[in-house]
Structures are given as C-alpha cells and as structure tokens.
C-alpha cells in the first residue's frame, strides 16, 4: 500500500507539471497582462518598467520555473480582474461547483446502477426496451438543451422549482453550502439533473453491457450450479465483477462532468467555477484561467487516485500487484 501511494504521488506530480507547463505556455503566448492591468493610456516606457518589475521580460524558462515555484507555495498568481490571488477567487467559487458535481454523481449512481442491472437481467422486458430507446436518444441530446427544457417545464410552466442561482446557502468553516437548506437543495435539483443527463444514458449502457457479459461467464453458471439463490448470484457474483470496469470509467467521467459544468452553470446562472471560467475568458483574465486549469487538473488527479484505491479494494488481483 505504501509503495502504491508513493508511486501515485510521483505520477501526480508529473501530471501536474505537464498541466502547469501547458497552462503557462498558453498564458505566456496569448494576451498581454500588462495591457489588461493598466489599460491603454499608460505610456510604453511605463509599461516596460512594469514588465521588468513583474519579471515578464525574463526568458520563458526562468518565468516558468518561477511560476512552478510559486504554485508549489500555493500562489497561482493574481487575478487581473478581481485583484485578488487567483486561488482565493477559485476557492470561493469551488463549493458551488463541487456540490453540483457531487449531487450529479449521486444521481448518476442511484439511477444508472438499478436501471442498468435491471435491463441486463431482463433485456426483453418492456421497461428495458424503453430505457434502451431513450438512452440512444439521450446520448445525442446536448446538455444545454436538456437544461432549457427542464427550466421550461419545471421552472416556467409548472413553476415547481427555481430556475437559476444557488438559493439560500450556509457558511460552514468557510464552505458555502447549499446542501443544508431546503431552498439550496431545491435550487440544486434542475442543474444537477441537467448535468447528470449527459452521463445517464452512457452509464446505463455501460453497466448493462458489462453485466450482460458477466452473466454469460462460467463462474456465474457455476454459481447457479451451486444452487445459490438469484439475489446472491446477481448481486454478489455478477455485480461485483460488473463494478470493476465501471469504477474505472467513473473516474474519467467525473472529469467530463467538471468540463460540462461550464455549460450547466452558465444556463442556470450558477455561481461556480465554470461560470467564473467563462467570465474570465470574456475578460482575458489569463492568470485566473491558468489557475483554474491547475485546480481542476489537481482535483482530477486526486479523484482518480481515490478511484484507484477503491478499485484495489474491489479487485484482489490489483491489491496483490500493489503490495509487491
């Protein structure tokens, strides 16, 4: 286990270095931070002075190493627009996005596992056929369309659920949470449904096909021959083997969920990192963009490490490989 963790940490560092390099190169090559900071009316000489002061005239590698050094100390630069450290800006927006992704993931898990397993066990049932039909359509529907339709039905026509914003939030140790108030939860429903809608059809199909494959294996046949009851064969023998590939894919899919928060948060005026990112793009706030890239990259690495640990617990063969 120790060797496993050490190896993962080294891998994570390499991944983060690559992300930082890409992020920094982009920032270095597009836009002029000095112009963004001081506007058009400052003279060329003064600009040069600022450039020198900020170290923007140093060679690329010197600047990159300085950037990495600062990043390691938790300084990801200063947002030109907010005039605050970027990390601070991002962290103030992070709870909204994290809660959105969390609730969407929970919706995905709660819906896709029962539906996927059911449609694998009873592929000929009417329900399975309907689900399969919808999932084919569902894969093709873009998330903003789902969001707009949901807003129209539940927000406008039925007027059951709020259509934008986070609603009432509670501050717990600096974390603005909407999970603890009734109003906050109501505000979460439509955005998280829209966000999860991109993964639901894919996930149902994945679980279904994996489960069907497992059900055909010899060890399942042997489990029947041992006279075990249905639930034991399906939910212990078949399900545990179905989980293996599904868990791995889930780690990657969470990254995709983060990417899609850009759209969801915009449609729902959700004050999260995605919303902030699009604002930063409009304002050419390159420092904030790079910081966003670093933070999201870091979260992605962290989530996948956790997923790998979970995977090790389910798959005994990995556990052995890790122990050696």
């Amino acid at each position: 286990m120790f060797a496993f963790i050490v190896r993962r940490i080294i891998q994570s560092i390499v991944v983060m270095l690559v992300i930082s390099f890409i992020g920094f190169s982009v920032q270095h090559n597009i836009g002029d931070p000095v112009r963004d900071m001081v506007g058009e009316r400052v003279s060329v000489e003064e600009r040069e002075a600022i450039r020198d002061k900020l170290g923007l005239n140093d060679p690329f590698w010197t600047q990159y190493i300085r950037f990495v050094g600062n990043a390691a100390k938790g300084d990801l630069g200063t947002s030109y627009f907010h005039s605050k450290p970027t990390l601070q800006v991002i962290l103030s927006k992070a709870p909204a996005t994290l809660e959105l992704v969390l609730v969407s993931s929970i919706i995905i898990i709660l819906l896709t596992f029962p539906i996927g397993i059911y449609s694998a066990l009873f592929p000929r049932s009417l329900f399975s056929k309907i689900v399969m039909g919808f999932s084919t359509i569902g894969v093709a529907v873009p998330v903003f369309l789902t969001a707009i339709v949901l807003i129209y039905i539940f927000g406008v026509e039925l007027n059951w659920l709020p259509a934008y914003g986070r609603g009432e939030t509670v501050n717990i140790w600096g974390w603005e949470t909407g999970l603890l108030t009734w109003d906050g939860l109501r505000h979460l429903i439509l955005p998280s449904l829209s966000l999860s809608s991109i993964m639901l059809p894919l996930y149902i199909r994945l679980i279904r096909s994996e489960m069907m494959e497992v059900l055909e294996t010899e060890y399942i046949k042997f489990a029947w021959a041992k006279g075990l009851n249905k639930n034991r064969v399906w939910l212990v023998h078949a399900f545990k083997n179905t989980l293996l590939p599904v868990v791995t894919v889930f780690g990657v899919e969470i990254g995709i969920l983060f990417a899609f928060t850009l759209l969801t948060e915009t449609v729902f005026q959700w004050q999260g990192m995605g919303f902030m990112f699009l604002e930063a793009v409009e304002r050419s706030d390159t420092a904030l963009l790079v910081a966003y890239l670093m933070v999201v990259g870091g979260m992605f690495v962290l989530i996948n490490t956790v997923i790998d640990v979970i995977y090790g617990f389910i798959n005994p063969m990995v556990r052995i490989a890790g122990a050696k």
Partner: protein
Amino acid sequence: MGHLLEVRNLEVKFALRFGDLTAIDNISFTLDKKEKLGLVGESGAGKSVTGFSIINLISKPGYISGGSILFEDRDLSKLSTGEMRKLRGHRISMIFQDPMMTLNPVLTIGTQMTETVLAHMKVSKSDAMDIALEKLKKVYIPSPEKRLFQYPHECSGGMRQRIVIAIALLTNPSLIVADEPTTALDVTIQAGIMDLLQELCTTEDMGLILITHDLAVVSQVTDKIAVMYAGRIIETGPTEEIVNNPRHPYTKGLINSLPGGLQAGSRLAQIPGMMPTLTDIPDGCAFNPRCTINGPICLEKLPELRVLDGKNHSAACHMLENDQRDK
C-alpha cells in the same frame, strides 16, 4: 428403491427462430450409487447438454421437451425452479471444464465455499468454514487454512480444480456430474484429478457422470460407457466391453484413433469427415456419411439401440450382423 439416477427417453430441444432443433434425442441411461458412467463423444454430440439437463441448467434457448429424469425417485424435469435450486449443488453437484474460469475472481475461496454450505444447510458461518476446511483436506490441498482466505488467482490450475471438486463435495451430494474436468489441465495433473474423483466416489458413496471426449480417461475411471453421436447414444455397455469389443463402427473408429502401441512416426488412425451439425443431420443413420460398412438401409432407417450378447452391451447399427459375419 430403484436406481440413483434414471434418465428415460430424454429429449432436449433448442427453440430457434426457424423452429425447434433437437439436440438430445431419446436418451436413456441409469446410474447407481458408487457407479461411474462415462459419456463420450466428439464436440457437439450432446454430452454437455445431457449433463446440464440433469440439473436443469441448459443454456437458453434450450429446454427439456420430453422424457423424464428420475433422481432418488423424483422426476427432476417436473420440479419447480425453487425445488430444483435446492437440489443443485446439494444432492447433485457439477464440476466444470475450465477451473480458471469457474471460480469467481473477486471472491475468496472461503466465501465461495461457505456460501454453498449456507445455501443448503442450516449451519452457522463458522461451522460452514469448518466444513469447507474439511473438504479442502479431502481433496489434498496443501495448507487449506490459508487457502480459505486466498483468491482464485493465487492458486494454480490443478489446485483450482481440486477446490472446485471440494465445492462439489461440500454438501455430501449423491451424484456428481463432471463436464470435461481435466480437459483444460496438464496431462500430469489430469491423472491426479481423475484418481481423486474415482477415490471420492467410493469413499463418499457417490455416483459420477464423467463427460469427456477422451476415451483413454474414461476407460481408466468408469464402470460403464455411453457413446454419443449427434444427440443420440449409439453404443453403451460396461467399460471393458466397449473398449475391448466395440461394435458400432463409430466406437471402433474412436478406439482405433487412440495412440496405443503405435510406432513413433506412424500416423494415427482417424475417422474421415466431421460430425454433422444439428441443422443438417442426414436421413437414416446419422453416421452413414462417415461409415465404412454402411448399406442401403442406413440411408433410410434410423437404427435403434439393440441389446447384444446379454452383457448389457447395446449398439445402434443396422450392420452389426453383417459386421459379425465379416470377422
């Protein structure tokens, strides 16, 4: 009480889009306690389907369409799903072909053993562990206590097949159906597994149905043999009789193709042609296109099993008398 197992006129069909296909046609055999029956034939002859139909686990869309399977005086083909489940792995156990595939890779051996015990007996978990341990010892697994907490991938193929056999023994069944139990194993390990099965039949008072394409294996282990071809039994009798005095041309061909007493470099005998698939079984005797002694009647009439010379030896061939004359 009659036989331990009596299969009477068993017929198994597969429901396909263009109609039902007969996979097993009118098969009958009996088995007593401690008796060992070998079901022999090429791939696709219906051996495995016969084996699986006994525990009613034929893969879809197969189903038992006729006949009866009397086991301990109950007709298995008429049992409900629940009653059948209680018999499976309890009174009748099955051993599968490939031990690398039969054990669930993500569950410990202990779990896979105790769950069987707990499914059929009212015992506590620790009692179930004790039973599992006892059976592992019975199949000569080294350090069985350790094995209980290991996963299948930590054991070798031969070891896994011993574990599968131990699982089959857990509830002291009276019948074991072994479907090609040694086909996937090394030759050196094969003999050990066969000896073990043979020994257990005697000590545990069980009947054994050994499904295999390997006549050599069957002749060493079993008391009697049923040779299958295209879904029918074409010759059956005591092992000694079948091996030393085969009567059906197909059985003769099988025995001649064994590499016994041959010179190095000489060619093995083989039966020309292939077994027909179920969709195009020829009229008359299914073996006639490959037969060397066939006559006009073989193309028209399906031969029935006929008893020969009073030693429980019967064969389904029109040409038996002619054949005898030729000798």
